[in-house]
């Protein structure tokens, strides 16, 4: 965006559906995709007289996430009611956390594998728990048709993670979301399925525009309904351009217009102004009298902290420092999730050559996983089976192109590397025999000698082809090097 006449300022509010079996304040199942209104009870339906009881598991999953985001955990937090009328909110209020959230002040570091931006630390304002609302399905024909409401989702635990407006491009926002999802996946606190809504993102976006009279800020717009990483990126890019156009047209700056909410329309690839829930939102927050404040102890916090395990940022470091992987390879492997990292580690230890293992996992293994659309758990070769193959490469018994042939055959047949090598008749060629072969071919092809001596090293390729015909097991690289050496010394 360096060529744009403005700087984009982005803060994200991410709603994470926590992986609990039951809802935040009742024991209804949180399973997705059940027939409408079958996973409800008097509590989540907000029936008169029903009372909420907090799901401790949700609280601890929230705490685990907050700790992984380096947030502080206050010892005393409480629940508040956010009051507003909407048909998908059967109680007329949402139970949330207002002035004493369960966690505050953390950060998430992001960096681009494609060098789109400098590494950045995005600060987190807070992460708090709240209950989800239901789903409304509207017939938009005004005054006609029905609106239908499904309350299965009502009361599902959400962790709302609010960042500072620290991001400066759509790409940063996308990578922040990807990094956050990866973290949540490693923590095993959420399914992170954006299509099913278990990871939802709202972005607060405005522009800083340098002018002759100093930098001005455009009014902040909240973009909702971005249900994929791509739509986060595109929505922000679109919104930035739109705000720039509007500013050029109207000259309105921050403070001159109320905060607007716009929805991302993925099919039209535009943001559209949304009808507000209530004219101006006065949620009349107050402490929920049906729930007791939550008091946590140091022991509880430490217990949760000790269950966090290794996280992506630390793992990337470790794969570089302990395994000698490149930044890129470490990034690619870690970004695939914990299971692939484990696979890599086993493979590296079994074969002994960590970088070779890294290259194979990042290259061939990932390519197969993508082609077959399977996860590493369903990959046909165990780390020790693959290690056998890598050992043959290390010993010089296989060149890389032969190794790939063997690899493909192993996947197809399920046989061991050694068996495949035997089946294919691959034999290691003795170095003396190889040199003899090269000398013979040079004698036969004086033209090539002249070309090479004349400065055209590529001409040696003709000899490699002939060598392969003579003996399919020769290593083309070796043939090339030996031939060049002989010719240079002639």
């Amino acid at each position: 965006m360096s060529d744009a006449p403005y700087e984009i300022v982005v803060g994200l509010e991410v709603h994470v559906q926590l992986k609990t079996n039951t809802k935040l304040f009742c024991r209804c199942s949180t399973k997705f995709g059940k027939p409408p209104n079958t996973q409800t009870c008097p509590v989540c339906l907000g029936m008169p007289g029903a009372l909420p009881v907090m799901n401790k598991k949700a609280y601890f999953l929230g705490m685990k996430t907050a700790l992984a985001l380096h947030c502080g955990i206050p010892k005393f937090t409480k629940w508040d009611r956010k009051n507003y009328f909407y048909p998908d909110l059967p109680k007329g209020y949402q139970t949330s956390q207002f002035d004493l959230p369960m966690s505050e002040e953390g950060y998430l570091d992001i960096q681009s594998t494609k060098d789109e931006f400098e590494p950045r630390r995005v600060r987190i304002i807070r992460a708090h728990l709240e209950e989800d609302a239901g789903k409304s399905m509207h017939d938009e024909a005004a005054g006609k048709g029905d609106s239908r409401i499904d309350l299965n989702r009502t009361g599902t635990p959400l962790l709302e993670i609010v960042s500072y407006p620290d991001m400066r491009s759509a790409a940063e926002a996308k990578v922040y979301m990807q990094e956050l999802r990866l973290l949540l996946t490693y923590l095993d606190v959420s399914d992170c399925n954006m299509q099913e809504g278990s990871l939802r993102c709202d972005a607060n976006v405005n522009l800083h525009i340098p002018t002759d009279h100093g930098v001005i800020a455009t009014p902040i717009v909240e973009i909702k309904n971005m249900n994929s990483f791509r739509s986060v990126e595109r929505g922000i890019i679109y919104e930035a351009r739109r705000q720039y156009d509007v500013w050029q047209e109207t000259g309105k700056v921050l403070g001159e217009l109320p905060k607007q909410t716009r929805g991302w329309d993925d099919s039209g690839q535009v943001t559209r102004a949304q009808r507000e829930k209530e004219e101006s939102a006065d949620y009349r927050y107050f402490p929920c009298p049906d729930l007791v404040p939550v008091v946590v102890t140091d022991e509880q916090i430490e217990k949760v902290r000790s269950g966090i395990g290794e996280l992506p940022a630390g793992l990337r470091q470790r794969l570089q420092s302990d395994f000698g992987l490149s930044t890129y390879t470490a990034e690619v492997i870690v970004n695939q999730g914990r299971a692939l990292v484990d696979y890599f580690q086993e493979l590296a230890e079994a074969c002994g050559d960590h970088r070779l293992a890294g290259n194979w996992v990042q290259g061939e293994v990932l390519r197969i996983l993508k082609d077959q659309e399977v996860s590493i758990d369903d990959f046909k070769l165990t780390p020790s089976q693959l290690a056998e193959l890598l050992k043959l490469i290390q010993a010089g018994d296989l060149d890389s192109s032969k190794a790939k042939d063997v690899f493909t055959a192993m996947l197809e047949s399920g046989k061991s590397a050694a068996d495949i090598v035997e089946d294919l008749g691959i034999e290691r060629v003795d170095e003396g025999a190889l040199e003899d072969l090269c000398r013979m071919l040079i004698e036969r092809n004086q033209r090539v000698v002249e070309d090479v001596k004349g400065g055209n090293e590529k001409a040696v390729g003709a000899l490699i082809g002939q060598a392969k015909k003579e003996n399919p097991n020769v290593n083309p690289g070796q043939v090339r090097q030996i031939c060049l050496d002989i010719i240079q010394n002639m």
Partner: protein
Amino acid sequence: MSIIQKTATEQLALLRSGEITSVELTQAYLSRINQIEPAVGAFLRVESETALTQAAEVDRRREIGETLGKLAGVPVAIKDILCTKDTPTTCGSKMLQNFVPPYNATVVEKLRSADAVILGRTNMDEFAMGSSTENSAYHPTQNPWDTSRIPGGSSGGAAACISADMAPLSLGTDTGGSIRQPAALCGCVGLKPTYGRVSRYGLIAFASSLDQIGPLARTVEDTALLMEVLAGHDSLDSTSVDTPVPAYSKSVHQPLESLTLGVVNQHFGEGIDPEIEAAVKQAIATYTSLGATIKNIEMPHADYGIATYYIIAPCEASSNLARYDGAHHGYRADHAEVLAELAEDGSDEGPLVRMYRKTRSEGFGAEVQRRIMLGTYALSEGYYDAFYLKALKVRRLIRQDYDNAFGEVDLIIGPVTANPAFAKGEKTSDPMAMYLEDLYTVTANLAGVAGISLPCGFTESGLPIGLQLQAAPFQEEKLLRAAQMFQNATDFHTRRPELS
């Protein structure tokens, strides 16, 4: 003496010894109701059939020697604010006229497992908002001692059915005095337990941090008996407290030695009816004669009780009652009428918002609407700190007053109300006068302490006068024992209104 004039404790003994059956007892109450109810109007629904079925079942189980619960075969009336499975629960409101809960309130479960017979649903001020039961959307309740007067409220039906011998026991709820005030005005005993002592699960919320369910009965002993069944921790109510339940019905007969009672001077200030003042002072003298020590105590913030209460309770109510929006539970304004209205006044309000507005305007009565507006206003941006937050601070100071007082005395003694039962319609157009009915009772709710109302005299015109005792949190046992001492020394609880 007719069986219905006996106490629940006596009736239980007769049931156990086989001298009477539950069906006979239930029949006796049903015929009393048949005879008296038209004059009193204590019930919203009498559930004769299910009551008799339950009674017959208890009798059958007794006959085959089964172990039965603590209230086996005794009828109990339930305030219509307590959810009862498959039974209409209206909360005295048009909004819930067709509401049939698919679940039982925890106290209803407890009554069922104590093998009580549920007689019917008693009348109340709509959503428990009121002090006269005139705010019921269905009909008013008359005071059995003078049917031109109100029975108090909001548990007016619960108190009236006891004093008119239409039920031996009943359940009420008390948010600012709604058990104690009608008990005083109807001449029966009513206990508001400590906040958290009785589960609120299934109690249709008015003000969640103040609401408590409690027993009403003719005698302290019966009150103790019912309290023993109601009390206890409930995993469904996060605010219920897990502390053991004493055997109130056993300990109630043990007098307290070296009892110190606190008297708050403000209780006898301006505005108290002289006959009430005299009766309460006489009651204090009775305690002195029983060996109690009397101490004057200060409750410096008690004067702010009403103001504090009428911020906090409406704030919570405005949120608790938001769910009655026509979309999910209860009454909904007619769709065609909503559209016709919109077409007529040309408003750009959407049909959804108009449906909300019309539903709530038609479904809620005037007092409920008034309190929702009060609460919504007090919680609004810019007013929150000045009203709600300040009220919370005063609430803490009131609790502090109580803590200090209970450091010096065992119980606080005083009046329940400033005046005896007033005439129907007398205060309906003056909300402030009605709110002042709670003057002596709201502070116990704000502080979460326990309070009991028991008969301590009659006015010259024959209206009952109540005595209030208040105890520190979870000291219901002390409260009941002290009340029983008074009842042993007096006979006010034995008098009956003349009804025919």
